[in-house]
């Protein structure tokens, strides 16, 4: 190797080393990191998580312990945590320059099954399952999934994020979504209320017994699919939309609103003594009450 060739090789190696080092430093700033937290709590603990960007998933733990696994997307976000009495508070703390990517934190959380949880994320998704404490989930665009919840208050608010509840029993359920579609599958309880502005509402189930079910959308369609065994007083009205009823109802003899063919119906199905009250209401959306076909 000549002296000239050797000089070129040295300069080239130096440049390559500089580039590699720079790349490694850059990656160090954006690499994701894990943080784990553990809190011992009492019965009926409270857990709240406020996470501007990223997912939150909550499942039951064994014992009175709250376990949190947080994945931070970068060093532009940190996790503030606090135990106040019997309440765990988690906050994703965005630092200067953080955005939806660099400020993202994804949480996997285990809580006692009787804990009350409050989750907030703009982007989501938000998930909660197999709990019997109160569940409050809020997120603008967050997809919300809740399943296997019993004897709890379930409150959900979204802007346009879709909401899906599956197997929520004996619940006090209140869902508000401006334009997200709402799907309730096997959701029963003393109160089940869905309010949407332009999103659709899809209920699949038997409306339980002696509950108050109110599904309201301004312009979204409402569809309820029920089995033969359903007992319910069902009233449906759409101001400008159509109303379809595939199930023979015993019509009410005394009604307090005008039953206009094709835009309203009101009647009883099943056993009146144990029937729930079901109100389906839309202004310009369609309402469809249909029978669930046998599997």
């Amino acid at each position: 190797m000549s002296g000239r060739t050797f000089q070129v090789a040295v300069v080239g190696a130096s440049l390559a080393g500089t580039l590699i080092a720079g790349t490694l430093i850059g990656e160090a700033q954006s690499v994701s990191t894990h943080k784990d937290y553990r809190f011992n709590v009492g019965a009926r603990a409270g857990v709240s998580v406020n996470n501007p960007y990223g997912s939150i998933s909550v499942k039951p733990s064994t014992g009175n312990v709250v376990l949190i696994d947080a994945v931070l997307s970068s060093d532009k976000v940190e996790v503030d945590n606090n135990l106040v009495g019997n309440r765990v508070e988690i906050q994703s703390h965005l630092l200067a320059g953080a955005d939806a990517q660099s400020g993202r934190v994804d949480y996997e959380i285990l809580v006692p099954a009787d804990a009350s949880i409050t989750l907030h994320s703009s982007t989501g998704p938000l998930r909660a399952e197999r709990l019997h404490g109160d569940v409050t989930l809020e997120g603008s665009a967050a997809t919300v999934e809740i399943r296997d919840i019993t004897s709890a208050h379930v409150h959900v608010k979204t802007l346009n994020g879709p909401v899906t509840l599956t197997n929520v029993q004996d619940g006090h359920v209140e869902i508000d979504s401006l334009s997200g579609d709402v799907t309730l599958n096997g959701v029963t309880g003393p109160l089940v209320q869905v309010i949407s502005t332009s999103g659709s509402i899809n209920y699949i189930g038997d409306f339980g017994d002696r509950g108050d079910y109110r599904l309201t959308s301004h312009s979204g369609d409402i569809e309820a699919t029920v089995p033969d065994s359903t007992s319910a007083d069902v009233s449906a009205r759409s101001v400008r939309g159509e109303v379809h009823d595939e199930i023979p109802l015993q019509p009410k003899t005394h009604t307090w609103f005008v039953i206009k063919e094709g835009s309203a119906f009101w009647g009883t199905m099943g056993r009146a003594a144990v029937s729930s009250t079901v109100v389906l209401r839309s202004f310009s959306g369609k309402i469809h009450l249909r029978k669930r076909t046998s599997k």
Partner: protein
Amino acid sequence: MNCVELQASLAEIEHGRNSEQRNHLNTCEECSALVVELDSIISAATELRAAEEPSPRVWNSIEIALRQEGLIRPQRPSRSLLPTFGSRWAWARWMVPAAAVLLIAVGVYVRQHSFTREIVRDLRPKPPVSDMAVAGLNDDDLLQEVAQLSPAVQAQYRDNLRHVNDYIRDAKSVVADDPNDEEARRSLMEAYQEKAMLFELAMDRSLP
């Protein structure tokens, strides 16, 4: 003379209007409209003279109801319970129960006319109530709140704002059609609730 004084004095007018009343009516559109409305009721009521006279029991019931509402005062001992028909404005005294009967008969329709509703409930005119006055929900505030968000997110909020305003408008319309419709009133509340939630989400979203 202010509006309240003029409206209180209307039933006492026996021979046209005095100068104070005329001055006030020249400057106050609402009171002027009130007098026009009363005139129209009076002229319509003259047609009722040929109708069958209600039984004393009906008049007593109306009188009791009006006393309970505070719309008529206890009679002075020196005055007859029944006003004379000798003057133009004395008809107005008869028109109070007559108007009550009309109100009962056309209740829903009458409730859509805020002016008449004001006569029944409160003679003082009230300004229209806006969304902002009801709940502090100003659309411009919302759009300003989300102005720093991405154009796509801003578009989402604008779209949702338009939808929820449509919702409120439609719900109001249905309530106006049938104020006794409990479900319609509830829908209106829910529409406002949706708008409040939109503001709440916008506030949350704009936080660092």
